[in-house]
């Protein structure tokens, strides 16, 4: 279908002005929200991901495509919920208490939005209690914890312990990341997932379905 192809193409170009408009147009034409999501938006992001892996697209271009995806999802999400279609999921993200670095966390957030997730960003310097509260309120599939400092990294363990104490650990998968974090550290503190960079975080999250 021509319109869906156009949406996919403009999404790949990172045209965040036109993609939501075109998405609206598709809805007006009576195309089902689930089809728009899968055949236009997700299909477009898949091409972006593939080109990124081949070094044809750089991270900033993936980010503007994600931004276009996010803008389209703002139009589409209410319709998807109305029709009861399945969405990619919800993720709560935040930089750990004592740490103010957020560029990596923001990058991860944008990429999850690009993959169709609803992203709840708690910001920086997030205390364990706030993560627990957010998990209770938003019932996310994933909680994503970020740290850039070796000194704040141990706080990640505290978040996981707090989730256990609150009886919420079983309801959410915990992913950790940030420059000093390693796969071994992630295992040691009982996290479910780790990815070494923003680009592979979404892929990792997809393998963590409850």
């Amino acid at each position, binding site marked *: 279908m021509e319109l869906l192809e156009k949406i996919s193409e403009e999404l790949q170009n990172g045209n965040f002005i036109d993609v939501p408009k075109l998405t609206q147009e598709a809805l007006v034409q009576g195309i089902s929200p689930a089809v728009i999501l899968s055949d236009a938006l997700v299909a477009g992001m898949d091409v972006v991901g593939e080109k990124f892996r081949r070094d044809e697209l*750089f991270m*900033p271009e993936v980010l*503007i495509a994600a*931004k276009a995806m996010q803008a389209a999802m703002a139009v589409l999400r209410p319709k998807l919920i109305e029709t009861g279609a399945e969405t990619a999921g919800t993720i709560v993200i935040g930089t750990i208490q004592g740490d103010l670095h957020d*560029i990596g966390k*923001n990058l991860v957030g*944008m990429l999850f939005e690009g993959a169709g997730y609803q992203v709840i960003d708690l910001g920086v310097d997030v205390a364990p209690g706030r993560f627990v509260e957010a998990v209770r309120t938003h019932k996310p599939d994933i909680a994503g914890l970020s740290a850039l400092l070796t000194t704040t990294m141990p706080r990640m363990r505290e978040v996981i312990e707090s989730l256990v104490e609150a009886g919420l650990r079983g309801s959410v998968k915990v992913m950790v990341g940030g420059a000093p974090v*390693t796969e071994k550290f992630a295992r040691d503190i009982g996290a479910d997932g780790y990815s*070494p*960079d923003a680009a592979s975080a979404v892929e990792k999250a997809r393998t963590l379905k409850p």
Partner: protein
Amino acid sequence: MKAIPGGQYRPLTDEGIRRIHESSLTLLSEIGVEVHSRLAFEVFRQRGATCDPAKKLVKISRAMVEDAVAKAPKRVVLCGREEKHDLYCEGKNVHMGTGGTVLNVIDLETGAKRPTTLKDVRDIARLCDALENVHFMVLPVYPNDLPPEDVDLNRFHSSILNCSKHLMGGIYTLQGTLDIIRMAERIAGSPKALRERPFVSFITCVVSPLKMDDLYGDILYHVAKAGMPVAIPAEPLTGATAPVTIAGLLTGLHAETLSGVVLTQLVNPGTPVLYACTATSTDLRTMGYVSGSVEMGLINAGAAAMAQYLNLPNYTTAGMSDAKVVDAQNGYEKAVTDVLVALSGSNFIHDAAGLVEFASTASYKQYVIDNEIIGMAMRAVRGIEVTDETIALDAYRRVGPGGNFLADPHTILWMRREHYLPKLSDRQLRINWEKAGSPTVEEKAVAAAKRILKDHKPLGLSRELNDSLRAQFPGIRP
């Protein structure tokens, strides 16, 4: 190609340049040059140089040098067979490429050193045609499988078939040189078309100290007469064929290459000629020739400065290494000398790709690695562009305090242009690098060279033209 000017690095002061130049004129007029070529000697004698036939000595006056420098072109355009490969050798424009001629190669499959053949001439030409940072090809290897009389024509013919960049080469016989010119005229369409767009050129040499050889004097005479572009390098070595000091070496080099420039302009005023330097240092602990010393970089940057003083297009040397393998020495010797000479604004920097082991051995994987080093050096030559657009106040306005520039349109517009993107350097996180099998630069270079040799299709020649060339020159190998 769009020429990129360098010249940010100045190894000599104006006063230093002037003193070296004046001293070279003293060498040429007081000591003179020993000229063994009778053709060349006759030209000097007839045109009024002070000559001593018994000693074969030619003393060249200041006036003769100044006259030749005035007649020599200030710009030499070395063309490719495709315009995108044209090299504007003038001012401080920088181009970098291969060099030779060597007798051995590190085999791509076995990694062992072996004698080079005509197949290596072809394969290396095809490789260099594909490597985007190699701006020209100085024919790098000698086909050991051919009789000497067939070497010149076949080296050029095989290279033309496989590489459409400018081809410059050393030559071994006068007949071979004349055949190459006739073949190139056929390919260009006519003698005039070849002079208008010379896609081949030649290297002769002056022997240090202060000696013009019999054969190379003759060849230089004929190339100048034919009006083809020619580089006339001298290769003085510190402490051996030149004084041990760099200023002393440059004084001799300047005199030697200028004696060649003078000859070309006496034979045929306006001959496109490159002031040329292949000088380097020796390690006097052993008296061994070395190619990767930092002094080598200084010498060649100095030579470029001397040529620029006279406004003569120039040919220099950089990017060689004494290392036998791909290791840290290989990388730092090439990088340091490349950067020094490139930043000096030399027009035609040869030997910068593909050579190892005192520039005595070619190596397929090394071409791919050196392509990367040249790319980085040329990015340094390009320098820092300052405009309203590159200062990017508007981007600051959009992003504001505490934000980031990752997805800003300015980033996307400029990221590819502003930054050199290496193809071989590893920039992955350790975990991803390990997952990929912990590849080394050397392994990636081998793979890239194999891929290019398998897939790259050069411009080549039409079948009719090639068949007709073979009929005219039966010595051309299939």
